[in-house]
């Protein structure tokens, strides 16, 4: 059996530059199926860039990325296959403001997989029920609170039946009282066995859900560890400093 097939995501020797500025330096990271990874690190350390490379919202210059055994290269077919398998949730939700909540979830299925409208709407409603806002289905995104919008965004991604979910600071644009409802949704998703990479500074979430925590600084992975080890006995000085800063 192919070794690559065991890992959901396999990143090796990844390097990326913006012009002459190197954002990602020699990144190696394997993510097993159903594994939950939390990525943290100071602002500008390249966390977003890293996860955006996984579904090619950013192009990398060196190194290899395999998603479910499919190499991410210039082949359009591979890219389509990878994007089908990988869902993404953004900091600013990026819901389509001209479509209703239900349509936000249904239209992408129709456009990217040629789903039938009825089937697409049924699935949209079932995932909206799962994130506990089926009653908002006919509203427009602008009429919902931030927390509700982010849950719609999660439902929209789930409607594509992804095997892997990427979260880029899903709660950092939310008011404090709405953070919990989104985190609860993500915890439920993790309990269902979804493979997840979550960029977040919610350390409570990391402790509770993560299988491994990745700490990045200036484009490098400084430390990877299980949450208890990572938080209670980090080995690297830079990790200790970072943790001291965010824990006050």
């Amino acid at each position: 059996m192919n070794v690559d097939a065991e890992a959901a995501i396999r990143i090796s020797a990844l390097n990326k530059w913006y012009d002459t500025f190197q954002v990602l330096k020699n990144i190696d990271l394997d993510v097993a199926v159903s594994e939950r990874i939390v990525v943290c690190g100071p602002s500008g350390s390249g966390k977003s860039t890293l996860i955006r490379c996984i579904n090619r919202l950013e192009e990398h210059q060196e190194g290899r990325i395999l998603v479910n055994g499919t190499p991410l290269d210039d082949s359009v077919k591979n890219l389509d296959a990878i994007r089908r398998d990988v869902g993404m949730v953004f900091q600013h939700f990026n819901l389509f403001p001209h479509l209703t909540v239900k349509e936000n979830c249904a239209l992408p299925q129709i456009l990217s997989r040629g789903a039938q409208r009825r089937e697409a709407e049924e699935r949209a409603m079932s995932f909206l029920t799962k994130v506990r806002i089926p009653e908002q289905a006919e509203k427009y995104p602008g009429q919902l609170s931030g927390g509700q919008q982010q849950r719609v965004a999660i439902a929209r991604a789930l409607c594509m039946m992804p095997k892997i979910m990427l979260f880029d600071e899903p709660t950092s644009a939310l008011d404090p009282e709405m953070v919990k409802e989104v985190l609860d949704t993500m915890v439920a998703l993790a309990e269902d066995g979804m493979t997840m990479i979550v960029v977040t500074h919610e350390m409570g979430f990391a402790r509770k859900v993560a299988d491994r925590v990745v700490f990045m600084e200036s484009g490098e992975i400084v430390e990877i560890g299980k949450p208890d080890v990572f938080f209670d006995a980090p080995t690297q000085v830079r990790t200790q400093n970072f943790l001291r800063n965010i824990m006050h």
Partner: protein
Amino acid sequence: MTVVQANSFTTISTTAAPPKRRRRSFVTLLFGDLTASCLTVLTGFLLLSFVPALNWAIIDATWVTTDPSTCRQGGACWAFILAKFRFIIFGTYPPDEQWRPLLVMALMLLMVLASLSPRLWGMKLLCAWGAVITAMLLLMWGGVMGLSPVPSSAWGGLPVTLLLALLSLGLGFPFAVMLALGRRSILPVPRLLAILTIELVRGLPLVGLLFVASILLPLLLPAGWSIDKLARTLAALTVFAAAYLAEVIRGGLQGVSPGQAEAAKALGIPSWKIIWHIVLPQALQKVIPPLTNTTIVMVKNTSLVLIVGVFDMLSAGRVAATDPQWPAPYVESYIFVAGIYFLICFGISNYSRWLESCVQARSYR
């Protein structure tokens, strides 16, 4: 009653009506303070100065007459409009066949009414428009189904104005979208082509473009080739509309956050569907006011075709007034034509405001 009494304590705060706005009396409204008084007096004088015009237009006007030469007796000669109505509306189209342009205008009105609601917009409506426009052109041209052929040089009046406006905007719009997308493309060739086209067309006056299309183009074509004059004029108007619409649409595209296309990409939607279903609808919603502006300008720009000899409504009005039987009623003729233009443009403007309110209803921010 007692139940209501018991509850009244809690319900007062929730069902309290908003505070009533104090009604101001008519006199305070007009002469409340110095500014208001000044404005009232000024407006009064302005209204008074319109009295002679009103006199001319209504009181001293001749509405019906049997003898054209006695029509003007200090007032407007509206009898002329009544007599020449058919000529101004239909131009030189053969009188026995004028039911055809009438039917064309009815079809157009019907289609416009059917397309008002954004809910119905889609591929089906687009196909319906395609079919109806073909039918309208066939009706005008004739030569099929027993209709006698009428060359486009004999068309005239309002149908020509409406057809030119509708077709130049309708055909110009897809070009405009392509130009706008091209100008934002990262590929150098489409971008340069788009910039070149837009800047060239915008840099020329419409009159110049019309002359190029109607006089220069036939000379450039290989011998034995000819394109209908009306079609050449339409081509010039279309190119002109496309260049202006393109810049408006580009403004809208710039207003759509890149996160929208990113989210769509991450969902695996193919690029052209992202443009068509996600980016373009949002871009257009953002630029309804300037789009309306360009549309109205283009409707009125069609009147410039009279300088290359296309017989639109304005030409028809002018020619009608040259009839020596009547005492040169140019003013009446132009007022009538202007009234029709105004109705069309006012309609477009109101419609766009309604569209905007539809868009705004979707968000309370």
